[in-house]
């Protein structure tokens, strides 16, 4: 991505070289990164906790309409983020069911909408991973006296690479999306230039809207670098097979 930026800069014409002069306040960028990571990682963590049991349950039980349930889960992977943002906005709005908690334009509301976006991805991909675990392995765990939970844990362990991929796909969807966090978060920075609800993506969008493409690119490069780092960590932890 860094390469992308430098290859792109000449096209835009006469931009300041990146190295000479980092065009953002350190505090600004750091707080944006913090908000991005806080919101997306929390959403993905919650999403994972919800997804894995669903994936295991759906993956290993047979019931009429199962195909439809799977299609529904996968459909969630295509929820338009703006609509999710609006739904969450209605929910947390003063008139909404969660109105009393005063969550409009807060990171909590952003976590809610990213949770809605990330969870179907994590569930869908984990479901596929879990389905591919051989029956024999689960049988072995069961035969050795495993509880349902034990069998589920063994299954998760066997499908760890696929599940790690699902979690990373969910994270990718959450951390890269801009539609819902903009609506429910409001892209707010406080007067001292610290992010309240501004994420890397909303900041990128802001710069792009104002025609400051090179700044958008720099923020994009930061985002991609972060994602790469997280990917490296998750794959190392979870993807023993690689």
């Amino acid at each position, binding site marked *: 991505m860094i390469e992308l930026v430098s290859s792109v800069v000449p096209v835009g014409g006469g931009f300041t070289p990146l190295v000479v002069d980092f065009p953002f306040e350190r505090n600004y960028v750091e707080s944006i990164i913090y908000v991005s990571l806080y919101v997306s990682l929390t959403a993905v963590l919650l999403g994972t906790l919800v997804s894995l049991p669903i994936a295991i349950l759906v993956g290993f039980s047979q019931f009429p309409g199962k195909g439809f349930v799977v299609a529904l889960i996968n459909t969630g992977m295509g929820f338009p983020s703006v609509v999710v943002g609006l739904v969450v906005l209605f929910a947390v709005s003063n008139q909404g069911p969660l109105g009393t908690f005063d969550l409009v334009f807060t990171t909590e509301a952003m976590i809610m909408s990213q949770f809605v976006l990330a969870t179907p991805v994590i569930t869908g991909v984990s479901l596929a991973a879990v389905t591919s675990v051989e029956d024999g392995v689960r049988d072995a765990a069961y035969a050795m*006296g495993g509880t349902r939970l034990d069998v589920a844990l063994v299954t998760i362990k066997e499908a760890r690479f696929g599940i790690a991929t699902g979690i990373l796909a969910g994270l990718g969807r959450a951390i890269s999306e801009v539609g819902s966090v903009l609506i429910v978060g409001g892209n707010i920075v406080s007067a001292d230039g610290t992010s309240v609800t501004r994420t890397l993506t909303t900041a990128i969008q802001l710069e792009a809207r104002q025609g400051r493409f090179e700044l958008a690119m720099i923020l994009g490069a930061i985002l991609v670098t972060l994602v790469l780092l997280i990917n490296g960590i998750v794959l190392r932890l979870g993807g023993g097979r690689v």
Partner: protein
Amino acid sequence: MMRQRQQRQERAWGSSEGLALRNISHGFDGTDVLDDVSLAVEQGETVAIIGPSGTGKTTLLRVLALFHRPDGGTVEVEGTDVWTRSERERLEVRRRIGMVFQEANLFDATVRRNVSYGRHIRRGWRDRLTHWLSRIGGEDTGEGVAEALDVVGLAEAETRSATSLSGGEAKRVAFARALAYDPDFLLLDEPTSDLDPRNTAVIEDAIETARARGLGVAIATHDMHQAERVADRVAVVLEGRLIEFGPAERVFTNPDDPRARKFIDGELVYGTRTGDRRDPSDLQE
């Protein structure tokens, strides 16, 4: 073992003190696989289950191991119909049963973790956590693991990945895994099918040791010699029906059902390449 002896006295209404199937029928997707099968494995005896390929031996063992709730009939453990009990109680029953599958079905982990898994899941969650924490920085030695691997002659493979084992090695690890947590019953599905004579003997020794210690052993095998060597009682399954169930000596020398005799005889005449082979069709009813 003492526990069971006591229970035997207490539960006089139970007609079997081991694992028993009563009038079991079971099938998959509309096809019947087992039909009215009754059979018991008492503690301290070895029951061999023999029969042609696809006849239902594996299904029978899986019903015994509580994998399938049978379509009909009851599965009893020490006289108790387990499928009327709570899942919790069935879990307790399952924890007394060790099983070796026809395929090795090893976990994608080290041999040690495979063999120690049975003990692992018997730990409470707090113990698991303590154990997991205590392992950080050092490797788990795994009580009982080395002993069980030693029985099957694979002590030195403890730290290897289970995926890199040869067919016979994997089968032996699976056997060690079933032994390692000291079950009361052993269900063995062709445990020596991929093994050379020496390793077969090792496993048969282990089976004999287990039986002598009071375990109830059920072994599905296609090897008539093996059935003769290890079994106290023999069950002959033909197309999902139990056509013969009795003391090994009688079944092998003087079976009631002519088809059982034919099936067993099948083996005896296939001695040499040039030998007189029977037409398979005359095994049919």
